[in-house]
C-alpha cells in the first residue's frame, strides 16, 4: 500500500471520481494547468482534458452559482474555492442558494455538488486564508460539512461526498496537506458521512475535535498517558453535519468529562453546539462542565501571534487539568 500525504490522497480521489463517473467535473481558480495552488488537482487536466478540469475566472460566486446549475442539469460538480475565507464572496450562492434548492423545489432538485476549500491555521498565510468558517455552514440547513484529518479519511470521505446527492462543504485542513504520510489503499473506497472516528480510547475525559487539532490532541494524549497516567479518549468528528451524536454521547457518558478543541473563534462556534447537546443528552453523567479550547474572538491574527492564538499545547493541557480537577 502506498504512503500518501493528504494532498496526494485528495488528488487520487479526484482522479478516481473523474475516471469512474463522466458526470464529475472539477473546476475552480488555478485548478487546471497549475494543478491547484496546493496541487490537489495536479495532472488532472492533462489526464482528463480541459472540458472536465476547468480553470475558471476569478469569480467565487460564479463558481458556486454555476455549480448549482451544473448539478441540476445532471453533472456532479466538484468546485474548489482556493481558501475557505474566499467563500465570503460566494456566501449568497452557497448559503442562500445551494443549501436551499432542494427545499425550494420541494424535493424536485437535489444538488450533488461538492465545494472543496482549504482552511486552518499555523501555515503563515495572508489575511482570510486560514479562517475556520465551518460554523457558518453548520448553521445553514441543507449543507453537509465534512472535515478530514488524515490522508486515509480524506480520500474515503471525498469519494463519499462526491457520491452524496446533497451539497457538501469539504473543508481541508491545509496544515495537514503534507504534514503526515499514511497508508492509503489504491482502490477507491468510501467512508460514510456522519461517523466519527475514535482516534484513541480512554477513560478519564473525552476530547472532541476535528481538522488539524486532531493530531495535536492525539500527541498530547499520548504524553499525558505516559507521563501522568491520564487517559484521554480522542474523537475526530470527521463531519459536523451529519453529526455522530451516538459516538459522542457514548464516550462522554463513559468518561464523564468533555473538552472541545477547535480552531474557529469561540463565540457561536461548533464547540458551543456540542456543549449544549452534551448538556441536553448526558448531563447526569458529567463530573465537570464541558470546556472549550478554541481560537479567540478576534479576526484571524497575523503570523507573528498566530501560534499563541490557535489552540496550543499549554492551553489544551491547562483545560484538561481544569476538567479533571473540577
Amino acid at each position: 500500500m502506498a504512503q500518501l500525504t493528504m494532498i496526494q490522497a485528495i488528488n487520487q480521489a479526484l482522479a478516481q471520481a473523474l475516471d469512474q463517473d463522466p458526470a464529475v467535473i472539477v473546476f475552480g481558480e488555478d485548478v487546471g494547468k497549475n494543478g491547484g495552488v496546493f496541487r490537489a488537482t495536479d495532472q488532472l487536466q492533462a489526464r482528463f482534458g480541459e472540458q472536465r478540469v476547468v480553470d475558471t475566472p476569478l469569480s467565487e460566486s460564479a463558481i458556486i452559482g454555476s455549480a448549482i446549475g451544473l448539478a441540476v442539469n445532471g453533472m456532479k460538480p466538484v468546485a474548489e474555492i482556493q481558501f475557505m475565507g474566499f467563500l465570503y464572496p460566494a456566501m449568497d450562492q452557497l448559503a442562500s442558494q445551494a443549501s436551499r434548492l432542494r427545499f425550494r423545489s420541494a424535493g424536485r432538485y437535489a444538488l450533488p455538488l461538492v465545494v472543496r476549500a482549504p482552511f486552518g491555521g499555523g501555515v503563515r498565510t495572508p489575511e482570510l486564508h486560514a479562517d475556520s468558517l465551518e460554523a457558518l455552514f453548520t448553521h445553514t440547513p441543507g449543507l453537509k460539512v465534512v472535515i478530514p484529518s488524515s490522508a486515509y479519511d480524506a480520500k474515503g470521505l471525498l469519494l463519499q461526498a462526491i457520491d452524496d446527492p446533497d451539497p457538501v462543504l469539504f473543508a481541508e485542513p491545509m496544515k495537514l496537506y503534507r504534514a503526515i504520510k499514511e497508508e492509503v489503499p489504491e482502490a477507491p473506497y468510501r467512508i460514510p458521512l456522519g461517523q466519527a472516528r475514535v482516534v484513541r480510547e480512554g477513560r478519564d475525559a473525552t476530547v472532541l475535535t476535528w481538522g488539524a487539532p486532531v493530531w495535536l490532541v492525539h500527541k498530547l494524549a499520548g504524553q499525558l498517558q505516559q507521563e501522568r497516567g491520564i487517559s484521554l479518549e480522542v474523537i475526530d468528528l470527521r463531519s459536523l453535519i451529519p453529526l455522530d451524536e451516538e459516538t459522542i454521547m457514548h464516550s462522554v457518558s463513559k468518561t464523564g468529562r468533555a473538552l472541545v478543541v477547535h480552531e474557529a473563534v469561540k463565540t457561536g462556534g461548533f464547540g458551543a453546539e456540542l456543549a449544549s447537546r452534551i448538556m441536553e443528552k448526558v448531563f447526569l453523567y458529567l463530573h465537570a462542565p464541558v470546556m472549550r479550547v478554541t481560537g479567540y474572538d478576534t479576526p484571524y491574527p497575523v503570523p507573528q501571534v498566530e501560534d499563541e492564538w490557535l489552540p496550543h499545547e499549554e492551553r489544551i493541557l491547562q483545560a484538561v487539568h481544569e476538567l479533571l480537577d473540577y
Partner: protein
Amino acid sequence: MGICEAGLVQVLNEDGRVVGEQPQNLSDAQLKDLYRRMQWARLFDQRAVRLQRQGRIGTYAPLEGQEAAQVGSSYVLEKGDWLFPTYRDLAACFNFGLSYTSALLYTMGHLEGGRLEEGYNLFPISIMIATQLPQAVGAAWASKLKQDGRVALVYFGDGATSKGDFHEALNLASVLKAPVVFFCQNNQWAISVPLSKQTGHTVIADKAQGYGLPGVRVDGNDVLAVCQVAKEAVERARRGEGPTLIEALTYRLGPHTTADDPTRYRPAEELEQWKQQRDPLRRFRLFLEREGLWSEHEEEQSAAEFKTVMDEALKKAEQTPRSQLHQAFDYVYTNPPQDLLRQKEEVLSWTQRKGSVSWHN
C-alpha cells in the same frame, strides 16, 4: 427588423403598425396564440391581485405591462431547454409548463408550491436578485458538456445589473461560450429606485460589450420584436456561438409587489404615458385586428375560456390540504441526518397531541 431610437429593435410601433420587417416565421395561428397567451397572463395577473386583496393568496408581484417581454421570449424555447425565472416572470413560466394551480399554491405559501412540473426544466423562482444568473450559466455549461443542444434562458430586472452576480455570470458565460441567453426586463424601476440611480449608463445592452458578447436592445412591449430577438439569441446559443444579453425595454405598470405603493415614488404622468400609449396588449391587438386576425368577439371568448380554466385552478389550489410542518424536514436533505429525523419526530408528536389545530387560532 426596424431599428429606431438608440438601436432599439422594433417591429410594431405604438399604434400596432409595422415599422420593422414582419417576421415571416410566425403563422396566423401562432400570432393569435401569442396574443392569447399575453391576454391570459394579464387576466391571471389581475385575478391574482384581487385574490391577494381578498386574503386568499399571499404577497404577489404583478407582471402587468411585461406580458410581451415574457411571452415573446419564452415562446421561442423548446421543451427541454432551461428557464430561470424571477418572482415577476409567471407569464414566462406558464408558457413553459407551470400550471396556474402551482403558481397559486406558491403564493398561498404551500411547501409544495415550489415543486414544478416534472419533465420541464423550469428552475425554482428566484427571490434573491441576480443569483439565478450564474446558476443558468451552470445549467448551460452542463448542456454544452453533454452536447444535448439545450439552451438556458434567464430572466432578471434592471436592478440585477447592479449585482456582482450579473457581472460574474456574463464574464463566465463568455469565457465558456455557454449556451445561455441573459434576458433583462428593464422595467425602469427596482422597487422605488429608477434606472438612472441604478446605473450610470443608460443602455443595459451596452454592458455586454465589456464581456465580449453581443448585446441587443429591444422594445419589450413589442411581442414580435421580442420574439425575433430572442429567437436569434437562442439559435445562436444552440449553434454553439455563446451567450447573448438582451435588454427588453418595458415597464411595470403595477406596484413592485402587493405590499408596495408606487405612488410614493413614481410620477403619475410617466405611468399614464406607458399605460395609454405603450401597452403591449393594445399594440399587438391593434395589429391583429388590422390583419383581420382578432375581434372583440374573440377577445371575449378567450377571456371567458380563461375564466373557466382559472376558476378550476383556483378551486384545485384552495382544496389542496394545508402543508404540514413535518413535511418540511423531507426537503432539506435527500438522506436526512439523525438529528433532523429526531426533530421531525418531535413535530409529529406535537401534531398528535394537538391534532390539526392551527396555532394561529
